[in-house]
C-alpha cells in the first residue's frame, strides 16, 4: 500500500512540476496573469506530494518493509532506528528522492519569501525550478524508482554498508544536498533575468541571500563529509581529492566567486553579465557532479551502483539544462560591459582578480578530476591524477586569492590610493611575517610551507581586525559599543567568514606540518610516548553491539602525571554483511587531537598492533568551516533583505543620474 502511495505521489508531483515548469514561463512571456499565478500553487502542491513520497519511503525503512527492493538492498531488521532512517538516502534511488525533496523545499521557500518580487520574475524563477524538478522526477519514475516491489519479498535486508552506519550519514548528505540544490535558486534567478531581459541591481539583491544560504549549506556539507572521513576511515586523513569530493568542491569555489560577484552587482551595478554566467556555472557544476557520481564514468569510493541507461539520461539532462542556459545566455545577455567606471587599483579590480583565481582553481580541480577520462577517451593512455597533482597545482592558485581576500575590505571602491593602501597593509605585513618566521625557528622545526600558512592566516586575521577597528574609529564621535551595533550584519558576516578562512588555514598548515604517527606493537601495560602524552595499553575485550561484535581496546592517556583521556578503539565485525570495520578512538581537543586505532591482533599474548596519531590543531579545519558558514548565515540575514520592497518607481533621466551620482559620493564617504 505505502509503496504504491509513494509512487502515485511522485506521479502527481511530476504532473504539477510539468505545469509549474511550462505555463508560468509562457505566461510571463505573454503577459498572461492567470498562467503566471499558477506557479505558486503548483509549487506548493508539488511540495506536498514530494514530502508525502519521501515520508512514505522513510516509513518503509522504519517498518522494515523488505517487499520493496530498495529497502531490502540498503537496510536490515537489526539496524538501529536512526540508521534505518539514514539508509533512506544510502543508495542511488533514495538519494535521488532526497535531492528532489530538497529541491522542492527550496522551491517552497521561494514561494514563501518572495513577497516583493514582480510577478513575471517569480513566475519565471518558479518555472525554471519546476523544469529542473520535472527532470529529476522523470528520471526517478523511469529509471530509478525507490518504490519498486521485490517479488518474492526478501526475508531480511542486505544491511546498510557499515561504513555508513554513523552519525555522519544522518547529516552529511542532507546538508550537502541543501547546498548543491540551493544553487538552483540562483540559477533560476539568472535564467529568469535572461528571459525577462532585465538585469539590474535589484535582481542581484534578490538573488544574493539565496546564494549565500546555499553556499553556507554547501560549506557545512563539505566540512561534515571531511570530518566524517577523518574519524571513520582510521588513518586520520580528511581530504583525498577523490572524484566525488572534487565534485562538491567545484560548485563551492564557483559559488564563492558568485557570492562576491553578486556583491559588486548589488552595490555598483557592475559585472552583471559575469554574475549571471557564474550562477549558471555553479549550478551546472552541481548537476555535473550528480552525473559524475552516478554514471560510473569515474572511480570513487563514493560512487553509487551504476547502470549505463541512467548515465545517458543524466547526461542528456545535463546537456539540456546547461546547454540550454548557455544558449540563452549567448542570445539574451545584455551587451553591457563591466558597468560603472573604476580604476586599476580598486576593490572592483580586486574582486575580479578573486573571481579569476577562484575560477582557475576550479579549472584545476576540473582538469585533475576529468583528465584521466579525456586521455582514455582519446586513446592516449591511462593516467591517474591524485593528491600530488592537486597539491602542487591547486595551492599556488589559492594562495594569491587568500592574500587578496584580506586586502579586499580595506581597499576603496572605484579608485584606491596606493600610498594609503600600503600604509594600511604595512603593519599587518610585518606582524604576519614575524609570526611566520619566528615560532617555527624557535621550535627548531622550520618549513617553508608552514611559514607560508602561518603568514597567510596572520595576514588575513590582522587585516580583518584592523578593518573592524578602522570602521569603529572612523564614524566620528560615539561610544564604540554603539558603533559596533551600527555596523551591518552583512559586514560582520564577511568578517566572520574571512576569519574562518584564516582559522582553516592554520588548521591545515599546523596539522600537515607537525603531525606525528607511531605504529607500535603493544602488549598489556606497554607504553608509548607521543609528544608529551603517555599512552598505556590495557588490553582488549570482546563486546557486542546491536548488529556487530567487536574487540574493544582500552588505552589510557596521561600527561604530566594526570589522566587526560581514556580511549576505546574498536575493531568491529558486522554480522549481516560480514564486513570488518575499524573504529578509531579520538580525544578531541582545541589544540590537538589524539587519535588511536587498532591494527591486527598479535595472536598469542593479547597484544595488538596500534597506530597512534598526534594531530595538532586539526579541529581548526572544521572550526574554520563552521565560522565561514556562520558568517554566511549572518550576512544572509542582513536587514536589507528583510525589508519590504516599498513601491516601484519609474525614474526620469535626471533622477537616475542623481541617484547614481549620490550613490557614488556616498560610497566614497563611507570609506573614509
Amino acid at each position, binding site marked *: 500500500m505505502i509503496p504504491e502511495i509513494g509512487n502515485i505521489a511522485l506521479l502527481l508531483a511530476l504532473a504539477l512540476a510539468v505545469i509549474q515548469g511550462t505555463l508560468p514561463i509562457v505566461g510571463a512571456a505573454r503577459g498572461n496573469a492567470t498562467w503566471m499565478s499558477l506557479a505558486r500553487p503548483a509549487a506548493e502542491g508539488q511540495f506536498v506530494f514530494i514530502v508525502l513520497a519521501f515520508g512514505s519511503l522513510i516509513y518503509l525503512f522504519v517498518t522494515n518493509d523488505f517487499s520493496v527492493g530498495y529497502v531490502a538492498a540498503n537496510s536490515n531488521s537489526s539496524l538501529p532506528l536512526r540508521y534505518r532512517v539514514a539508509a533512506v538516502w544510502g543508495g542511488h534511488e533514495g538519494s535521488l528522492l532526497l535531492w528532489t525533496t530538497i529541491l522542492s523545499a527550496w522551491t517552497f521557500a521561494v514561494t514563501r519569501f518572495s513577497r516583493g518580487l514582480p510577478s513575471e520574475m517569480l513566475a519565471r524563477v518558479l518555472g525554471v525550478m519546476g523544469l529542473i524538478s520535472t527532470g529529476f522526477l522523470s528520471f526517478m519514475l523511469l529509471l530509478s524508482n525507490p518504490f519498486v516491489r521485490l517479488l518474492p519479498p526478501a526475508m531480511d535486508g542486505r544491511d546498510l554498508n557499515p561504513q555508513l552506519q554513523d552519525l555522519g550519514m544522518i547529516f552529511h548528505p542532507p546538508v550537502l544536498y541543501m547546498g548543491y540544490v540551493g544553487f538552483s535558486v540562483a540559477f533560476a534567478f539568472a535564467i529568469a533575468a535572461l528571459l525577462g531581459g532585465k538585469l539590474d541591481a535589484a535582481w542581484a539583491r534578490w538573488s544574493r541571500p539565496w546564494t549565500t544560504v546555499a553556499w553556507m549549506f554547501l560549506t557545512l556539507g563539505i566540512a561534515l563529509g571531511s570530518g566524517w572521513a577523518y574519524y571513520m576511515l582510521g588513518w586520520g586523513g580528511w581530504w583525498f581529492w577523490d572524484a566525488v569530493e572534487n565534485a562538491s568542491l567545484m560548485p563551492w569555489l564557483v559559488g564563492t566567486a558568485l557570492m562576491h560577484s553578486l556583491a559588486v552587482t548589488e552595490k555598483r551595478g557592475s559585472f552583471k553579465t559575469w554574475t549571471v554566467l557564474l550562477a549558471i556555472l555553479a549550478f551546472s557544476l552541481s548537476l555535473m557532479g550528480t552525473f559524475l557520481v552516478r*554514471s560510473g*564514468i569515474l572511480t570513487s569510493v563514493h560512487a553509487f551502483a551504476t547502470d549505463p541507461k541512467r548515465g*545517458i539520461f543524466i*547526461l542528456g539532462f545535463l546537456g539540456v539544462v546547461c546547454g540550454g542556459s548557455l544558449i540563452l*545566455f*549567448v542570445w539574451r545577455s545584455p551587451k553591457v560591459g563591466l558597468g560603472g567606471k573604476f580604476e586599476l587599483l580598486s576593490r572592483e579590480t580586486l574582486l575580479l582578480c578573486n573571481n579569476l583565481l577562484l575560477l582557475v582553481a576550479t579549472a584545476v580541480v576540473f582538469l585533475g578530476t576529468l583528465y584521466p*577520462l579525456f586521455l582514455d*577517451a582519446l586513446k592516449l593512455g591511462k593516467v591517474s591524477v591524485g593528491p600530488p597533482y592537486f597539491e602542487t597545482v591547486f595551492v599556488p592558485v589559492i594562495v594569491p586569492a587568500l592574500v587578496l581576500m584580506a586586502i579586499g575590505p580595506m581597499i576603496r571602491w572605484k579608485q584606491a590610493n596606493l600610498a594609503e593602501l600600503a600604509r594600511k597593509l604595512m603593519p599587518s605585513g610585518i606582524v604576519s611575517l614575524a609570526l611566520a618566521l619566528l615560532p617555527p625557528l624557535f621550535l627548531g622545526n622550520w618549513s617553508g610551507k608552514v611559514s607560508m600558512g602561518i603568514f597567510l592566516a596572520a595576514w588575513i586575521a590582522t587585516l580583518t581586525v584592523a578593518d573592524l577597528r578602522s570602521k569603529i574609529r572612523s564614524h566620528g564621535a560615539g561610544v564604540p559599543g554603539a558603533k559596533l551595533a551600527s555596523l551591518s550584519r552583512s559586514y560582520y558576516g564577511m568578517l566572520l567568514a574571512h576569519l574562518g578562512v584564516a582559522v582553516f588555514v592554520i588548521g591545515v598548515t599546523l596539522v600537515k606540518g607537525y603531525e606525528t604517527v607511531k605504529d607500535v606493537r603493544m602488549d598489556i601495560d606497554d607504553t608509548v610516548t607521543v609528544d608529551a602524552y603517555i599512552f598505556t595499553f590495557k588490553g582488549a575485550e570482546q563486546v557486542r553491539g546491536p548488529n556487530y561484535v567487536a574487540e574493544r581496546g582500552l588505552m589510557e592517556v596521561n600527561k604530566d602525571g594526570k589522566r587526560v583521556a581514556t580511549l576505546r578503539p574498536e575493531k568491529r565485525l558486522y554480522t549481516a554483511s560480514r564486513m570488518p570495520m575499524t573504529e578509531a578512538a579520538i580525544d578531541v581537543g582545541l589544540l590537538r587531537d589524539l587519535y588511536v586505532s587498532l591494527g591486527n591482533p598479535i595472536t598469542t599474548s593479547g597484544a595488538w598492533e596500534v597506530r597512534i596519531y598526534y594531530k595538532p590543531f586539526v579541529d581548526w579545519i572544521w572550526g574554520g568551516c563552521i565560522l565561514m558558514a556562520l558568517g554566511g548565515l549572518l550576512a544572509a540575514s542582513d536587514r536589507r533583505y528583510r525589508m519590504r520592497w516599498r513601491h516601484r518607481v519609474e525614474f526620469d533621466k535626471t533622477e537616475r543620474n542623481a541617484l547614481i551620482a549620490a550613490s557614488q559620493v556616498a560610497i566614497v564617504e563611507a570609506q573614509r
Partner: protein
Amino acid sequence: MRRGVLLLVLFAVLMGFFAVGLTLNPREVPSPLIGKPAPVFSLPRLDGAVQTFAPQDMLGQVWLLNVWASWCAPCRQEHSLLVELSKTRLVPILGLDYKDQRNDGLEWLHEAGDPYTLSVSDIQGRVSVDYGVYGVPETFVIDKKGIIRFKQIGVITQEILQTTILPLVKELNG
C-alpha cells in the same frame, strides 16, 4: 558574444567526452607490456615434476598464458571454455597458478578439468607482478618470438575468444 559561443563549443566538446566516457571502464588497467618480451622467470611446475618452466621453453610457438587460482570464483566461468579450447588443440594453454597452495591447485584441476599443457606455481605472486597481474583471471597471448601481443583482463567469454583471441592466434601463426 564571442565568449559565449566559445563556451558553448567547449561545453559541446565536454558532452562528447562524457558520452564516450560512458562506454569506457575507468577501473581497467591496460598493460604496458604489450609489444614487449614476456618477462623471464623460472618457476616450479605444479604437477610436482622436478623440472621448472621458463617462457623461453615456448619459443617458436604461439601460446596462451592463463593466470588462475583455485580460490578464484570468476575463473570457474571461463574454465570450461578453456577445457574445450584445449581439446581443439588450436593453441597451447599454459597456466600460472597465482598465490595458491600446490595441493589446492592440483585438486581444483582434478575436479574441473585440466586444459593446461602444464601449470607453474607462483605461490608468492612475484612473477605475476612482473606480468602486471592485478586480478584473476587474466590471459596473455604470446607469439613465436616470445613477445606479448594481447592481454585479456577478466573472464574470457565465447565472444572474446572468437572475435579477438583466436583470430590473433591465427594471424600470429602465419
